[in-house]
């Protein structure tokens, strides 16, 4: 089983704060891994470090065996990694169509992926000319995920997709992510354990800037005490 992503013992500082103190994560190709942990543990920072937005000061990050730590974010993205940040981060002053257009890395990307994207998120087709700012939270989240599907990405980093969304929307989102995970690898950050357990095959627990525990989701589901200890109320 090859590993599409290997994060080896990274240390990341924000200002003088030592946020990540030796985090290690692996994502097997073609699977979905979830980062679990309490608020402020360092999950978002881990994604940002992989993406190069807050580069690690120590440690290595390998993408398909190639080192990407220290590279500029746009270079890392071009290698085939898509980032769906917390709070959507879609462009509110741009239309849905423009939001998708700007994600193109090669001419014609959107034309090729259109059908697949609208199959996953039929609402977007209807809203195509609206400004991003006029969409509901759920629609924005779908746009953010759709945007990461436009270019030829092999790995998606998705940060808290279910946050602030109504249950019915979450169901739709989960179905979409499950479908796209058939052709992509996913590294997910998710506080909602129900969503996480349905989507991911593997987990890594991030606690106080470290990664003390990891394993398969099936094993984690059996261990109630573990769930309570690291995740609070499940």
């Amino acid at each position, binding site marked *: 089983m090859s590993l599409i992503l290997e994060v080896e013992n990274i240390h990341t500082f924000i200002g003088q704060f030592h946020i990540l103190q030796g985090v290690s994560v692996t994502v097997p190709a073609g699977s979905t891994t979830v980062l679990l942990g309490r608020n402020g543990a360092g999950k978002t920072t881990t994604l940002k470090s992989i*993406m190069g*937005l807050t580069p690690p000061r120590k440690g290595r990050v390998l993408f398909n065996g190639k080192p990407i730590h220290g590279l*500029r*974010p*746009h270079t890392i*993205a*071009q290698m085939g990694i898509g*980032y769906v*940040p917390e709070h959507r*981060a879609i*462009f*509110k*002053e*741009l239309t849905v169509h*423009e939001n998708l*257009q*700007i*994600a193109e*890395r090669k001419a014609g990307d959107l034309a090729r992926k259109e059908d697949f994207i609208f199959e996953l998120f039929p609402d977007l087709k209807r809203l195509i000319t609206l400004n991003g*700012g006029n969409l509901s939270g759920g629609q924005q989240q779908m746009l953010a995920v759709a*945007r990461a599907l436009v*270019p030829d990405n092999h790995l998606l980093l998705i940060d808290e997709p279910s946050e602030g969304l109504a249950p019915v929307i979450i169901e739709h989102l989960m179905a979409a992510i499950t479908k796209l995970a058939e052709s992509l690898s996913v590294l997910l950050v998710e506080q909602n354990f129900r969503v996480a357990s349905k989507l991911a095959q593997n987990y890594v627990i991030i606690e106080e800037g470290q990664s003390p525990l990891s394993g398969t989701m099936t094993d984690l589901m059996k261990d109630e005490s573990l769930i309570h200890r690291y995740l609070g109320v499940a």
Partner: protein
Amino acid sequence: MNTSSRQNALVAAGVIIAVLLLVAYSNSSSMGNFGITVLSGLFQGMLLFLVASGLSIIFGLMDVLNLAQGAYFMMGAYVAYDVQHVGGVVDLTQVIPDPNLRFPLAVLGAILVGGGLGIILERGLLRPLYSRPVFQLVLTFGVSLVMIEIVKLIWTTTPYSWTEGFGVRDSFFILFDQRFSTYRIFVVAMGFALIIGIGLLLRYSRIGLIIRAGVEDGEMVQALGINVRAIFTLVFTLGSAIAAFGGAIAAPFLGASTTLGASSLLQAIAVVVLGGMGSYGGTAIGSLMVGLAISVAQAAAIGTEFAALPSITPMLLLILVLLLRPSGLFGTAR
């Protein structure tokens, strides 16, 4: 910015412009006089737009208030003056005896020098400082001062008034028993063309898309695989080139003097704050308003002891905006 506040802003802008026109009209002795004031206002507004557009977009995109924009305007005026007239650093009077032909070259020279200095500033000086925004502001301030000193060294402190007459500059037409300068009309028309042209570029080209997205969230644009830093350099260079262009085409009327730097900068700042930082439409409308306001003040100040009124009008506007609505007409409160 949602549609209702945008509509409110447009209404407010319309009201302000209407008030300004009314004041100008009541102050004018004749229709011809009124026309002159309006034309002068549009003329100055266009020149302001050339400086302010760069200021606004650069600030929205890069979070840097480029205080050197005014100095580029000044530099453009000096380069154009130098190329056009006899003597100076570049003397083309023998090579190209026809002043009408020399002028486009003068303007081109100004654009090249402005753009060149812009690249140097952005790549050489600003890039190392992206992590320290406080120092970036201080740096652009220092650069503007150094540019003024360089100008003084090359061209002395004596201001130059444009002496070379040439066709377009000197021609005029008569309307309402008043002489209107064709040149001013030409500049205003070209200004409008630029406003629309740049606006179209922003809306329909990929670069424009990236710039609009970058103004909102530069980090996300990077995460999408786009090299924002190259875009920064491009935008910065265009901004400085356009500002220098403004100085060059203003020179036949305003001449070249070292005070152009500070005055154009402060006026441009007033425009950008009034229109809303980072808003292209806001900058366009703001330029019109400030230009008109200065022209009205100039007309009102003739013959009175408030000779300084036109110079301090933009600052008064700035203070007013900061007191009432700091995000400007079309800006988003950030």
